[in-house]
């Protein structure tokens, strides 16, 4: 009976490879995810890391040359023709020198649209430079009056960042892994639809079912063909991640990213049961549909569930022992712990894979029953 399995699998693979739509779908999700992340990171790095000059409008610069010099040393410069100022206005009053000499508070206005998030870091830099300058004047004044500057610093806050490079990487790279999981779900989708609802649409399903082939082998072979594409997409995305990040200067974000071959191998192995599960789930849905389009609609609704689960886990970092056992979440867990630099929980990996495979087998049984039912096959 095994020969029949391979016959059908080979035919479905040949069919899918010749179908440009299936091939493109499998490749594009795998390529698109890591690429998108790489671009996003590049933008992020530019934004966060570069100590660019802040150009501001300074009104009354002539009243406070020392302050302007100080701001310049903090790379906060007045706008010029070459570098126009941003929408941040700094107003130094006419009475600056006078007030300073009398030790009166000097009103300095920082005017900007505080709801605009993109200029937030610039505003912060302007404000903290002003605070720093004010602090140094205060210290001078106290020193002149014979008072130690320590008096006005009762607390000394020492900020120690405990985030390791690995855990910071996990935060960011978790998103990348979401793409790997998603490409498992999306790469095989077209093949699954084409070999079920497509078969029905082409009027070849009934004839195929009338062949001397045990239905469970038929279902298993079709699921395996779709899963081959799903696993291919997932593994391609996985292999592309280190390649893509060669071009992204992650170290500037303080992220240390390294994925060893052995890690990739383990993840690839973990993805295989997930690919089988995803494919049989898709077959289950699309064998009920009468046309390719109908199947696509149903599947996109059903696929929302695992995708939502992955995103929810990614954002909330919710943990529960049972999640290490379930399909999708257990694979997510393995991927996440491998990038967070946590040791691999071998028992959990085996349990998660075993449960995923068991559920896959149950679904094979369900789809087999479905295809033996006249109601589903003939739509009676």
């Amino acid at each position: 009976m095994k020969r029949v399995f391979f016959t059908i699998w080979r035919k479905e693979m040949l069919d899918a490879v010749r179908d440009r739509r299936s091939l493109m779908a499998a490749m594009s999700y795998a390529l698109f995810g890591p690429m998108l992340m790489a671009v996003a990171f590049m933008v992020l790095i530019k934004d966060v890391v570069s100590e660019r000059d802040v150009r501001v409008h300074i009104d009354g610069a002539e009243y406070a040359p020392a302050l302007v010099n100080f701001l310049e040393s903090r790379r906060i410069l007045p706008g010029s023709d070459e570098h126009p100022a941003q929408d941040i206005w700094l107003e130094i009053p006419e009475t600056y020198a006078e007030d300073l000499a009398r030790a009166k508070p000097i009103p300095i206005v920082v005017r900007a649209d505080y709801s605009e998030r993109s200029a937030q870091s610039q505003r912060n830099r302007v404000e903290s430079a002003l605070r720093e300058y004010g602090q140094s004047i205060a210290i001078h004044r106290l020193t002149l009056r014979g008072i130690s500057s320590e008096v006005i610093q009762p607390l000394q806050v020492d900020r120690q960042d405990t985030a390791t490079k690995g855990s910071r990487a996990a935060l960011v790279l978790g998103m990348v892994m979401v793409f790997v999981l998603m490409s498992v779900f999306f790469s095989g989708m077209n093949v699954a639809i084409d070999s079920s609802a497509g078969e029905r649409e082409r009027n070849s399903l009934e004839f195929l079912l009338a062949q001397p082939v045990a239905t469970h082998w038929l279902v298993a072979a079709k699921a395996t063909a779709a899963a081959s594409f799903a696993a291919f997409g997932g593994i391609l995305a996985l292999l592309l991640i280190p390649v893509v990040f060669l071009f992204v200067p992650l170290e500037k974000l303080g992220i240390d990213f390294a994925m060893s071959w052995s890690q990739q191998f383990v993840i690839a192995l973990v993805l295989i049961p997930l690919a089988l599960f995803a494919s049989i789930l898709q077959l289950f849905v699309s064998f009920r549909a009468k046309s390719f389009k109908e199947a696509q609609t149903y599947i996109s609704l059903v696929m929302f569930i695992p995708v939502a689960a992955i995103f929810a886990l990614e954002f909330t970092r919710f943990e529960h022992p049972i999640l290490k056992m379930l399909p999708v979440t257990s694979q997510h867990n393995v991927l996440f712990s491998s990038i967070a630099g946590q040791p691999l929980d071998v028992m959990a990996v085996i349990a998660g894979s075993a449960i995923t495979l068991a559920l896959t087998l149950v679904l094979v049984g369900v789809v087999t029953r479905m295809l033996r039912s006249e109601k589903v096959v003939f739509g009676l």
Partner: protein
Amino acid sequence: MIKTDGLMKAYKDVQALNGLSFHAEDGKITGLLGPNGAGKTTCLRSIYGLIKADAGFATVDDINAADQPLEVRRRIGIFPDKFGLQERLTAREHIAYFAALHGLHNDTLKAAVERVIQELDMADIADRRTAGFSQGQRMKVALAQAIVHQPQNLILDEPSRGLDVMSTRILRQLMYRLREQGRCILFSSHVMQEVAALCDHVVIMVKGQVKAEGTPQELCDRTGKASFEDAFVELIGTEEGIML
């Protein structure tokens, strides 16, 4: 040999088969003739074992289709009602796929595919993908896939629908050849001329029951009509649903 005995099948409120019993013997072409909605397709589906009858049974070479569907399917070749081809495969690959599903492999498979391609004179289209095939070419592929494993029984569901003269001739010649080889051929149709011209034995069914059976001549004699068409109308008792 194909037999049905007291087949009953109801869908919701429609009684599709209502105690259908007939024989199709080896070395004969048996025509299943009936108006649209007479239950022909349901009958054939029960013979393939795709549908479980509410009562009665269908056998192929004395094997019950409901109990051993795989064993039955190994003994039949099917020319389906709607033949969807695998459009991304070439004709040769398509035929080979179904030959493999019937358990042929390696050299036996290659030889069987080659033989059927020669037999149906389709060498010129064998290595083209089936996507752009004409109706006649599609019919050849469907016929080839039905007989590639040399089944003892051949079942054709409305085979000449939409075929031109040449394709119909090919189909007929093949059926005559298979009859000479002593195989059992059952074909369903609602086109009377075709049945009258081809069949050794005609089963006229209406509303899921056999109304009459015999050779076309016998049926004419029985009703006292000169033409088979008039005999048919007389037998089914109405002119409704007949396509001339």
